[in-house]
């Protein structure tokens, strides 16, 4: 599994706005570059990122070749109940990576 870092506050007050940060290791090769020998370096990027909370999708992003290596995505959500965030990155060449983090809402 490729290295991923997710940052979710372990605890939050009900109704609080919380920030979620994710960092995924990936080359994000845009597919527009050439080797010294003139051959195209094939595209190899993450194309989609999804975050689900207790099974329901709460955030999704499509990614494109202009995005730098090791994509860092951060977004906000409202802490409604305790549960589990599940993160999924999907990309070229069958790339799939997942991570999860729990939160306690009181």
């Amino acid at each position, binding site marked *: 599994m490729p290295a991923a870092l997710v940052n979710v506050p372990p605890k939050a007050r009900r109704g609080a706005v919380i920030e979620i940060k994710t*960092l995924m290791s990936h080359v994000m090769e845009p597919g527009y570059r050439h080797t010294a020998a003139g051959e195209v370096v094939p595209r190899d990027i993450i194309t989609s990122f999804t975050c689900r909370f207790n099974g329901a999708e709460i955030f999704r992003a499509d990614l494109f070749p202009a995005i730098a290596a090791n994509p860092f995505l951060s977004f906000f959500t409202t802490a409604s109940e305790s549960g589990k965030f599940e993160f999924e990155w999907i990309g070229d060449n069958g790339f799939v990576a997942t991570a999860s983090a729990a939160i306690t809402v009181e």
Partner: protein
Amino acid sequence: MRPQALLAAALLGMALPVLAGEIAPSGRRSGYDFMSADSKAMQDDDTANPAMLSVLEGETLWTTKAGAADKSCSDCHGAVDVSMKGVAARYPAFSAASAAPVDLGQRVNLCRRQHQEADPFAPESRELLALTALIAKQSRGMPITAGGDPRLASSVARGRELFVQRQGQLNLACANCHDDNWDKHLAGSAITQGQPTGYPIYRLEWQGMGSLQRRLRGCMTGIRAQAFDFDAPDMIALELYLMSRAHGMTMDAPAVRP
């Protein structure tokens, strides 16, 4: 200042003797201090600093058995946060086995060869960067102490000689930029003092990790000089001089740099 004026200011150095005004200890500043607020925030947050991905890989390698000896780093060294605390802050160090100074990457490869009986990692390989990033992180916040060993004296002196030696088609010495003009800019980049506090680094321009050696090769190519080979004795001497020049500065590895 406008970039043109700054370039002119740097190139003006060509006509002057090397001043090599050494920076007083109280005036030493890490590359961190010259970064934008955004880059500082990226370095400060371990879940935003992309170098931490390399550290994570290093943690896996640390406990992976390898080589004919079928031993992992942790089999001999135990917990990395205990055994490797402060180690990176005193490298390059003298290696009795090599009868020469070795930098941290070379030290890791000595263990690969002698203790794991495995092939050494290539310079700038993912694995070597990951392990050195993991080890360097254990020196975060600690003062740099490399270069004190008397057996290193001749190598430190050689490194200093190289630092003040003009080279390349632009005929500039490291000192022309990093001692004499560190507070200026070159084509939009802060020149900085060229302090080695954060290596290996995640460099935004590279979109990846790199060692101090890679960074130094970049500066040599920039002045159109023949860059030293990876691990060449002069390369190690230059690294060693930079670390001794940064004596007492706080390590901020693995750092982010523009």
